[in-house]
């Protein structure tokens, strides 16, 4: 077990170096630099004079080739320093710390809802497979699955923030809170919850549709197996056959799915956070790319990669728990 974890750890570090190297290279070689983008090159009055540009370049380390920049970034990371954001004049760790809470609130709620609803829905669909109500449900889920979130988000905004304005159904258009920071704890919670309803809905429905269809497909695969016939021949009832014998076997692929959803929990959704102006990680990522804010891009990339690797490791360890045929040895 210890050697297995050690091997995974070393392999993970190697993977991290490869990922960050590629992302750093891509980011640095994108057209534009923090200076051109953020200083408003098109506005001649705000254009920096050449000496200032050179000075800024030196400060940011942009006067060196990108692979040297990467090595310097890597060295700082090893020393525990993710650097300072170019555009926000703050340490990247502080930025991430500010954004992680809102994203976790949004994605955590969505993930919880997805699994709380998706598992029963998938089981229900496989239990009633082929019947009219299941077909209707599956059709609806399929439509939801193929419906893009950004379209759904706009529809929801029009319905709840525009058409229903002034009614008790009205929901805020965007943002996380309208109340000042010194408002009461209870009032703030209610306010944030009201703001979260639409983005959570958007983030939940697609993965809900995907997960329940995934569970149904795996259940249908499981109930075709010989051991299901054995269970029925033993005298097990339909409920026991489905939930005890079949579902226990679908846990194996489900664990992979769960592992893959871990990075999203902290990484958030770029599209949804952008549409709803939610102050989370996804939005920070989007903005840092737009501003060519290399330290922030790299900090976030590093964090997502670490989470992805942890998610995979967790899934592999959970495998051993749910499938006796798998062992880490």
């Amino acid at each position, binding site marked *: 077990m210890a050697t297995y974890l050690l091997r995974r750890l070393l392999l993970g570090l190697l993977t991290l170096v490869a990922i960050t190297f590629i992302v750093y290279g891509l980011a640095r070689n994108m057209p534009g630099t923090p200076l051109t983008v953020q200083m408003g090159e098109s506005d001649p009055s705000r254009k920096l004079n050449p000496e200032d540009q050179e000075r800024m370049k030196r400060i940011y380390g942009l006067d060196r080739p990108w692979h040297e920049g990467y090595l310097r970034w890597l060295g700082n990371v090893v020393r525990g320093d993710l650097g300072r954001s170019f555009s926000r004049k703050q340490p990247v760790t502080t930025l991430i710390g500010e954004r992680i809470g809102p994203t976790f609130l949004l994605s955590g709620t969505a993930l919880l809802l997805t699994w709380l609803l998706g598992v029963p829905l998938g089981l229900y669909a496989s239990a009633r497979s082929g019947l009219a109500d299941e077909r209707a449900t599956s059709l609806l889920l399929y439509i939801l699955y193929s419906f893009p979130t950004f379209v759904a988000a706009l529809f929801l905004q029009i319905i709840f923030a525009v058409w229903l304005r002034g009614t008790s159904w009205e929901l805020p258009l965007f943002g996380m809170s309208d109340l000042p920071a010194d408002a009461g704890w209870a009032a703030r919670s209610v306010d944030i919850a009201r703001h979260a309803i639409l983005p959570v809905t958007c983030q939940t429905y697609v993965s809900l549709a995907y997960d329940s269809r995934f569970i149904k497909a795996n259940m249908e695969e499981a109930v075709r*197996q*010989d*051991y299901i016939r054995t269970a029925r021949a033993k*005298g097990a009832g339909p409920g026991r056959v489905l939930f005890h*014998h079949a579902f226990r*076997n679908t846990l*194996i692929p489900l664990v992979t799915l769960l592992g893959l959803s871990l990075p999203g929990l902290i990484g958030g959704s770029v599209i949804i956070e952008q549409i709803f102006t939610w102050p989370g990680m996804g939005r920070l990522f989007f903005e840092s790319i737009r501003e060519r804010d290399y330290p922030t891009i790299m900090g976030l990339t590093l964090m997502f990669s670490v989470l992805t690797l942890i998610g995979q490791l967790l899934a592999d360890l959970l495998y051993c728990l*749910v499938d*006796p*045929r798998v062992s880490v040895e």
Partner: protein
Amino acid sequence: MPLLEINNLVTAFHTPAGRVPAVDGVSLSIERGKTLGLVGESGCGKSVTAMSMLRLVAAPGVIEAGEILLRDATGGVLDLVTLPEPQLREVRGGRIGMIFQEPMTSLNPVFTIGDQIAEAVLLHRNVSRAEARGRALEMLELVRMADPKRRLDEYPHQLSGGMRQRVVIAMALACEPDLIIADEPTTALDVTIQAQILDLLADLRQRLGTAILLITHDLGVVAETCDDVAVMYAGRIVEQAPAHELFGNPRHPYTIGLLAARPERRGPDAHGAGSGFRRAGPLRTIPGMVPAPQHFPTGCRFHPRCAFARMPECSGVMPALNELKPDHFVRCSYADALGPPRRMDGTAEELA
């Protein structure tokens, strides 16, 4: 009174291509404590017959007609075709146990051997988990599993095919059923393991008095283990008789063909070369194949392959299953007239 009686069972599959009657009017009866062999080529409907007996036929298969009567010791009769699901579940694994062909896949990979046998006990008996586990251990000892205590907590993938089949047998026998349905229980196993499993079944039948329906395509297995034999062809029983009668005096051309198609074993050959077994001449086969149910011929379903067929009579009328002599039933219009059993090549040579 037989323990189990099947009357005119019809099981058909309703596929997009039409109705496929895999079992088309099968009647069988099994006496308490006896072994009945159900023999036939692949696709003749023997497995579907077995699955129908516990209503385990998967959709789109439907039992369309017939009755399956199960008698208990006091004379009570249940018709398994019409029995409501909850009562049927008491029969499944309780009064009728089932053994399947594929020991590699018929155990659930994520549960331990002990749990899977104990489940059968818990489903039918009002016992505690600990008692059920104790019963599981007893069953493993009964099926002569090596190191049974350790096996209780092992998973199916840790066992060999033969050991898994012993587990399946232990599971089927855990509630002391009156009848075991064994659907090709040894087909997927090595020859040496086959013999062990057959010995075990024969031994258990003697000790527990369980009746066995043994489904197989292997006439050798039937000859060694069965009291009675039913031969199935194209969804119907074509001949049924006590084993010694059927092997000594086969009357249906299909049965005659099956027996002739067995590789005969002889000692070292005339030249003294080699040891072991040699076939006595080339292997005889029955020409043609079992027709698919949607293409069953009219009249006697065997007539297109039959060396004795008389046209147009044999293609016109489906012969009835007649009792040629006590306990020997044959579905052939000319069973009486065929004279002494012949080889399929038409020579008058007696079958050994």
